[in-house]
């Protein structure tokens, strides 16, 4: 083989001190600074709004937070109203939602990722699930009204029906988050388990699911937090009634925190302004606790490899 000699080229060293180069470098530094400021501005904007909301609510509502408020239910006199009934209603609704949507969502995600063949039907299912996650919540409310109340005659205004309706809404979020988390488990781990003779179910439950769990839990809690703040679908199924006693179980009439806030904000009596803010503080505290739990669980189960 002949090697063609390269034509002689005179290499001139780059002059890093030329004015063109120095202005180039200056522009690069300026771009870095601009981006940094922009990012800082975005963070400041986001936290600023949250801080404003918190401070505003605190100044309006902190005086309304007392033992009566935390232990009583709705009443006609703003001095006597309490949040406990709505809080318990929210808690029961969330329990129903979680118990239904988590296992179904996780199993659906596992089936779609690990077992289902890739064809037109699974593509269609994938598109449908993504669509379902974006459907306005009021439509789920109408669906719940039509199916759970009119067809199955479940009790009106009950956390059971609220939970069922919100579970329909939360499930697609869990399926999507679950599929992403399952996809992120390296295939080499599946190969390793199959290679020592693990059956497909053992591969899923011994390896894939534990490794995907932090991601699934994060997605679940995001979905649950969204369900906790949901008002519209619960109005549709009658969880807006005036209820003066806290619910004893999932079939008792109840209301939930966001609906209670909505109802009180509509009251003409001056005393309810303070109580509305106080209820918002309770709702925010509940959300904060849920998100804190999400971060705790993620860190606890996260494994590195």
């Amino acid at each position, binding site marked *: 083989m002949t090697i063609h000699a390269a034509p002689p080229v005179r290499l001139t060293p780059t002059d890093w001190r030329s004015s063109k180069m120095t202005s180039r470098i200056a522009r690069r530094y300026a771009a870095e600074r601009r981006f940094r400021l922009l990012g800082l501005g975005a963070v400041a904007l986001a936290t600023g709004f949250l801080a404003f909301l918190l401070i505003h609510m605190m100044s309006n509502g902190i005086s309304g937070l007392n033992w009566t408020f935390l232990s009583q239910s709705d009443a006609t006199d703003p001095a006597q109203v309490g949040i406990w009934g709505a809080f318990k209603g929210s808690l029961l609704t969330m329990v129903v939602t979680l118990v239904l949507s988590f296992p179904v969502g996780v199993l659906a995600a596992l089936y779609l990722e690990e077992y289902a*063949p*890739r064809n037109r039907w699974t593509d269609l299912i994938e598109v449908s699930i993504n669509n379902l996650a974006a459907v306005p919540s009021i439509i789920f409310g109408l669906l719940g009204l039509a199916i759970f109340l009119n067809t199955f005659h479940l009790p009106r205004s009950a956390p059971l029906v609220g939970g069922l309706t919100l579970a329909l809404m939360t499930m697609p979020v869990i399926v999507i988050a679950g599929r992403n988390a399952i996809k992120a488990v*390296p295939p*080499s*781990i*599946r*190969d*390793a*388990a*199959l*290679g*020592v*003779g*693990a*059956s497909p179910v*053992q591969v899923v439950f*011994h*390896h894939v699911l534990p*490794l995907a769990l932090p991601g699934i839990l994060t997605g679940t809690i995001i979905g649950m937090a969204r369900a906790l703040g949901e008002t519209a679908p619960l109005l549709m199924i009658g969880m807006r009634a005036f209820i003066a006693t806290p619910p004893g179980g999932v079939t008792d009439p109840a209301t939930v925190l966001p609906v209670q806030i909505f109802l009180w904000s509509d009251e003409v009596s001056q005393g309810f302004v303070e109580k509305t803010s106080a209820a918002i503080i309770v709702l925010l505290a509940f959300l904060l606790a849920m998100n804190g739990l999400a971060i705790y669980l993620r860190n606890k189960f996260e*494994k*590195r*490899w």
Partner: protein
Amino acid sequence: MIHTQDAPLLKKVKMTARNVNVFYGDKQAINDVSIDVDMEHVTALIGPSGCGKSTFLRTLNRMNDTVASARVEGEITLDGENIYSSSMDVVQLRARVGMVFQKPNPFPKSIYENVAYGPRIHGLANSKADMDVIVEKSLRRAGLWEEVKDRLHDSGTALSGGQQQRLCIGRAIAVEPEVILMDEPCSALDPIATAKIEELIHELRGNYAIVIVTHNMQQAARVSQRTAFFHLGTLVEHGVTSDIFTNPREERTKDYITGRYG
């Protein structure tokens, strides 16, 4: 069967492949391959990238089943039994034909759990003490025991690459397989770690049939007794390693082992 030092040609066939074709969709990856795998021998599969040697290796424990588009034709037997017949239990097959992968892939669990996983799912240990014995024996045979015996409950992924690969070998032999498949087990390792693995293959050979895919012809020459040369999905030539390397019958084999291509 009497097996003595001076009867090296007395063959104990463990696995046979007859007229094996593998397709990925419409594309044929393996074309009419027939070969035997013997007990107490290391069989090296060599050939340029994309020649189908890894694909063929994965047909021997049906790991190709996990690829939806893959289709295998022909007959592969283990102790005379067709592994592609409907009566063959794939889970049991993979316990009998263990596998070590190209990239070390320990589970993100402790060293102990990595080795104990296989025996546990197959119910090979009756007690914690039994399991301790299996784990120690497997890690000793994998040449890793002395390095990890004081930190069995540390994560397997915290070990060095070479140690991880020996852990994977220990994990494979913990379920007492009869055949071990190795898919380029040293390609991600440095020369010292590679030497350790090769030494280990020498020691393990007496108890298993070992099939190793390698890119490295010196490695094939060092560790194997049988060599099979693959090219473009066909088995060009196979036989005793020393013959293949000193006296190849086919022009293509000669060109490859002398470094003309590949």
